């Protein structure tokens, strides 16, 4: 049997959730059966990672503005490389990639929805337009993959794709065994000295976008700091809201108490320094960072929303609070800080229960099976 040519496509070359999943697939798909290439905008950490894996990286000039030339470029990439399976990740790659695939007749097209973001848009017209687009695009898609059971339900409810083409492949996270990284403890100790954050450290790792609800974490800082004046709240991540959030911190007089660290390459080490991990999101697909925090045995305070609920069980592996409720968020954080036994118990259970439910092996196997089934259906 010949190797199937797979193209994994995403728009931005930064390292968000979708990119991480794409990289995990690229790294782990069986190379005997699949020849994997990656297509994204050039010039980011994703490109470096792909090249490190020794896979071919095909740059494309993704942007939000559609252009005819760009569509032609994508079509050329698909036909010149004789791609058998195009797998698009996220809305923008899905839109342009699938349109190009239809033009050049790529046999198998898979699309993963990494969180159905447009269902949470405040503008009802935009929301309808995106739902309509998704439905239209799914007509020529072989399979539409959802990353959580909740997303699958939503996709069914809104009929985003014909029911027989909707699939569930839960995200899997590569967990690095701390024992295999002997320098880690020293690095973290060093990081403590380098940043001199006052403890306890309450932290999150999130893109600064409305979706992640970081504003609510800032609004929860006042009650938290009133009860625990020595605490520091740390946010790792950059994004469109950065300036606005910094202004809010200054306005509330929280300088040096709430710290926005921006985008960092040492996010995992920083996460290890947190005493409590918070995820204040308003909506999620299946948030990888929660699984990473769980793997480190962090006590978790998250919002009770679709994706997070599927990972954290309230009172067993973390605490879940109403989204968009800073007071409730502060309450949960303070409970974890005040009750060390509870924090330890939740953290330990999270470490034991959560990562095994979201393994890379399962995600890759399910994806491979999906590729092979669809390819066989096309006689490849």
């Amino acid at each position: 049997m010949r190797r199937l040519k797979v193209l994994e496509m995403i728009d931005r070359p930064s390292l968000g959730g979708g990119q991480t999943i794409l990289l995990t697939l690229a790294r782990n798909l069986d190379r005997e059966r699949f020849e994997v290439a990656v297509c994204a905008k050039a010039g980011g950490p994703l490109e470096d990672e792909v090249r490190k894996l020794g896979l071919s990286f095909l740059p494309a000039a993704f942007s939000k503005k559609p252009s005819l030339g760009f569509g032609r470029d994508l079509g050329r990439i698909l036909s010149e490389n004789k791609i058998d399976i195009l797998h698009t990740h996220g809305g923008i790659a899905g839109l342009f990639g699938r349109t190009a695939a239809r033009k050049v007749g790529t046999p198998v097209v898979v699309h993963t929805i990494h969180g159905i973001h447009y269902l949470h848009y405040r503008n009802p017209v935009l929301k309808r337009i995106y739902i309509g687009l998704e439905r239209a695009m799914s007509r020529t898609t072989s399979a539409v993959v959802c990353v959580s059971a909740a997303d699958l339900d939503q996709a069914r409810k809104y009929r985003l794709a014909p029911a027989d083409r909707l699939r569930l492949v839960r995200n899997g996270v590569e967990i690095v065994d701390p024992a295999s990284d002997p320098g880690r403890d020293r690095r973290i100790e060093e990081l403590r000295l380098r940043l001199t954050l006052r403890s306890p450290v309450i932290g999150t790792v999130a893109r600064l976008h409305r979706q992640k609800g970081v504003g609510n974490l800032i609004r929860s800082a006042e009650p938290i700091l009133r009860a625990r004046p020595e605490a520091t709240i740390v946010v790792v991540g950059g994004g469109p809201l950065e300036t606005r959030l910094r202004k809010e911190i200054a306005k509330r007089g929280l300088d040096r108490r709430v710290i926005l660290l921006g985008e960092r390459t040492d996010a995992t080490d920083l996460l290890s320094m947190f005493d409590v991990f918070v995820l204040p999101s308003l909506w999620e697909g299946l948030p990888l960072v929660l699984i990473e925090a769980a793997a480190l045995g962090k006590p978790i305070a998250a919002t009770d929303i679709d994706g997070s609920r599927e990972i954290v069980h309230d009172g067993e592996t973390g605490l879940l609070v109403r989204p968009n409720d800073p007071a409730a968020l502060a309450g949960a954080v303070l409970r974890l800080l005040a009750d060390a036994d509870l924090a330890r118990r939740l953290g330990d259970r999270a470490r034991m229960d959560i990562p095994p439910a979201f393994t890379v092996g399962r995600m890759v196997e399910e994806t491979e099976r999906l590729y092979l089934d669809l390819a066989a259906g096309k006689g490849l």
Partner: protein
Amino acid sequence: MIKPGFLSVILVNFNDRPHLAACLESVAATLGSIPNEILLVDNASTDGSVDVVAAAFPSVRLIRNATNSGFGAANNRAVRESSGEFLLFLNTDTVLQSGAVAALLEVLHSDPNAAAAGPLLFPGPGRVQVSFGNRVDFLGQLGQKFVLNAFYKKTLTRESRIREAGWLSAACLLCRRSAFEEVGGFDERFFIYFEDIDLCRRMKASGWRLLFVPRARVFHEGGATTGPRLASSRLEYRKSQVAFYTKHASRGSLRLLRVYLHLSLRLKKIAGRFRGEEGRRLWTAYRTLLKTGGLAR
């Protein structure tokens, strides 16, 4: 490992043999009992200055860059290899006056929310360089250049009050390491110029305070390594300025700067500044800068 209370003095050298010795001697003389290390990054100098340092100042740790990686990148490299809780960034054409470093350190010790402290820089007796400022946008810079600087130059010689600033010059800058690392250090996309203002801006945005301490006094000749190549350093200055505006300033400010640069370039062209082969090369470089706008290194 980072050592509490420890000071790392960081210098970046590029063909500045004439000033190096005086500078390093003043460092040794003023630090006194402050526990310290001195790191000097050489950006591929060709004037033998490295040999001078190696011979006369054996305690200075030499880091040799194979190519000139730019001012910010060289400093970042030294910071990675240093271990001080405090970092003193120092140009090679400075001479520390007695008590200068102690005065700066005292300020950072007494204010835990201060990220950095800068001294009064002077190029000669009774003269002052304005090495701090508040606003950095087109009108702010214009105002500082034509109005404030004249005022500061008159008043600063007599002043000892510590004032809060929007930016401080890295010709001599004492920095708290945690603040420096928190904001991610110098942005290496700036080759030279504006990397210090950019660093300060990011520290400010993170809620840190920046303090100008006129009690600490440092002689600074200025332009020692850039002077001999004046025309090309002016170009580097403009490159960094456009990059800085692209990164930080409002769109209006950037537009004003571009209009200003277009006009002044035209005038200089008419005045015959871009004649000859070298002139034509500069002219194309300026044109490309204005077309592409800065940060694309």
